[in-house]
């Protein structure tokens, strides 16, 4: 039985400065409207893409979205930043209205886009529980009946009559979450933004999600954390440029997402002949490739390199730097390559499993003579994403660190 049906949903946004030069647009729109004509600006469509800078002043943030969420299931909505997830959430939580289409909802809907909305720093914990509860749609009587439970859950009993501005940030978030956790909606919308707190908080958060769904209620979980989606969701939909491009089981959706993601990365470069290859008079690149294309943390990763060597020396020292998204060099490694009878050098660098953290890495390659004279170098020649597979703990945030080696522990 569906709890939510989204039908032909569109949302248009206006780009650029909204408040200047739009009186003319507004007026034009209004003129068309009173003459019963179609809105002149709705026809202009631009895809929701951050790479292309279109000329259109209006873009569709989401376009023709259709899906349904069945009662009692946890539906994961995944996609890259800018895919339209947040817009969809905003429409579902009635913060903004769609441009076209409709959403049918069965039951009370509560969205946790943020906890502690409307908390007033000058008010005490007690006063804020009532205020925040009411903002989230509870009546005073409902809050009163759950008040003790909320306080106990938050663990701030001692400070309940202290203004929340004196709270530590942890206490503040716990109290805020305690209110939200006692909402008991039929449909719960959770934004991954929630998953940024500390591990204990995440545990509570995700535990609450599981509770909710096990009680036959519906959860929409928005994330680009694949590990969390895989272990929490039954089904998933994948959004890309404002459209739903895939819907299926959580595992399938995650796989699809990774495939699409992989397409946007450049895991492989090959040149058929020396003439078209990049390089210089010493070195001409033949190919660089990462195998597998989108490795999991738990897999061995091979970097295959081959090039034509026209330098004086038969031996070329090859070094690779692994650069993360912060432009930091995670580590570098090098080896001596020998030229074969065709003038080609080939070699493979193997990164052991459980070493790189999840994330996107790009490669810089340096070619040097045995005397360490630079022959050629190339930056950002390929890039690839290491994916997190699954976790045993309840923590689904990114684990700190540039690398994530599996270490031996004794207890």
């Amino acid at each position, binding site marked *: 039985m569906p709890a939510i049906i989204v039908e032909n949903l569109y949302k248009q946004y206006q780009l650029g400065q909204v408040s200047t030069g739009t009186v003319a647009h507004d007026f034009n729109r209004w003129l068309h409207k009173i003459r019963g004509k179609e809105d002149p600006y709705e026809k202009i469509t631009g895809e929701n893409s951050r790479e292309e800078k279109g000329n259109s002043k209006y873009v569709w943030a989401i376009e023709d979205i259709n899906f349904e969420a069945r009662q009692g299931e946890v539906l994961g909505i995944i996609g890259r930043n800018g895919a339209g997830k947040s817009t969809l959430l905003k429409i579902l939580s009635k*913060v903004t209205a769609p441009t076209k289409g409709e959403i049918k909802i069965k039951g009370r809907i509560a969205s946790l886009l943020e906890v502690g*909305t409307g908390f007033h720093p000058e008010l005490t914990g007690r006063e804020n529980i009532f205020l925040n509860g*009411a903002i989230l749609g509870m009546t005073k009587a409902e809050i009163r009946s759950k008040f003790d439970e909320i306080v106990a859950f938050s663990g701030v009993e001692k400070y309940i009559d202290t203004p929340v501005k004196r709270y530590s940030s942890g206490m503040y978030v716990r109290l805020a979450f305690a209110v939200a956790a006692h909402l008991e909606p039929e449909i719960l919308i959770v934004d991954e933004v929630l998953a940024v707190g500390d591990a204990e908080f995440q545990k509570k958060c995700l535990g609450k999600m599981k509770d909710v769904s096990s009680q036959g209620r519906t959860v929409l979980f928005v994330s680009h954390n694949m590990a969390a989606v895989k272990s929490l969701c039954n089904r998933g939909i994948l959004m890309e440029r404002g459209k739903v491009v895939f819907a299926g089981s959580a595992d399938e959706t995650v796989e699809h997402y990774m495939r699409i993601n992989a397409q946007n990365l450049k895991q492989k470069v090959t040149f058929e002949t020396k003439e078209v290859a990049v390089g210089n008079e010493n070195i001409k690149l033949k190919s660089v490739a990462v195998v597998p294309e989108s490795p999991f943390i738990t897999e061995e990763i091979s970097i295959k390199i081959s090039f034509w060597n026209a330098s004086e020396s038969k031996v070329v020292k090859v070094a690779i730097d692994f650069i993360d998204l912060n432009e930091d060099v995670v580590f570098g490694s090098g080896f001596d390559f020998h030229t074969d009878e065709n003038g080609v050098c080939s070699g493979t660098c193997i990164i052991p499993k459980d070493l790189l953290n999840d994330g996107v890495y790009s490669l810089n390659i340096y070619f040097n003579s045995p005397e360490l004279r630079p022959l050629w170098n190339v930056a950002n020649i390929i890039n690839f994403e290491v994916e997190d597979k699954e976790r045993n703990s309840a923590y689904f945030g990114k684990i700190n660190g540039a690398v994530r080696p599996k270490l031996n522990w004794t207890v």
Partner: protein
Amino acid sequence: MSKDENWSEIIRPKRHWLDLNLKELWRYRDLIMLFVRRDFVSVYKQTVLGPLWLFIQPLFTTITFYFVFSRIAKIPTDNVDPILFYLSGITLWNYFSDCFSKTSNTFVANAGIFGKVYFPRLATPISIVISNLIKLGIQILLFIAIALYRVYFHGAQININETILLLPVLILLMAIMGLGLGIIFSALTTKYRDLSFLLTFGIQLLMYATPIIYPLSFTSGKLHQILSYNPITPIIENFRYAFFGIGYLDIPGLIYTTVFSLVVLILGVIIFNRVEKNFMDTV
């Protein structure tokens, strides 16, 4: 249509013009009262004088007006004790102007909450009107206290008649007008921020176009006519008639004000209702 009955809610692009959903607003009445409480409690926390500020502001304004307009400019007050004359005007005017100016930036001031959670947006301006009503009540008590003081110790003349029973109606009219105008402007300021500057200035000017510091009888000719088009004029004048016995009971004026207020409120609610669905995109 029968299939639709199963759905508890349908989110659509635009509501019908007059689909005001007052039932939903009623469901959120607790929230309105909690907002009122928040506004009241939070304003005076960490102030030394606390709610005493409610008294200080009108008293000091009155004293200033007394020196500037009564002693220096020698503008008559229709034989009414000037202190009471100004204080009555200021007390009433402040209610209207606070309702108007504080509701006029509803969307801009609450963008943070509005962007994260849905509740009927009208709850916010309504709570402002109510919390100002409490403030007005306290200031009316101050006015009564000062009036008693002036009567016993300075021989000021007051002449309360049965028209005073209209006071709740006068206050309600100001609330409706302030709310209506405020939400019209709040809807407009989401797009055109300049309006909020214009508004601060405009409300100030409007005070001088209302018989606050002078009685309506002081004016004549064309000016008098223009002032009687000001819908707040009958409220102030009728209050002064009821309390001091000056002027006359202006029933046509009150009817005019009532019609004006209701039109403004209905227009305001309709505009507000249109804007609340999409304002997050422009704010």
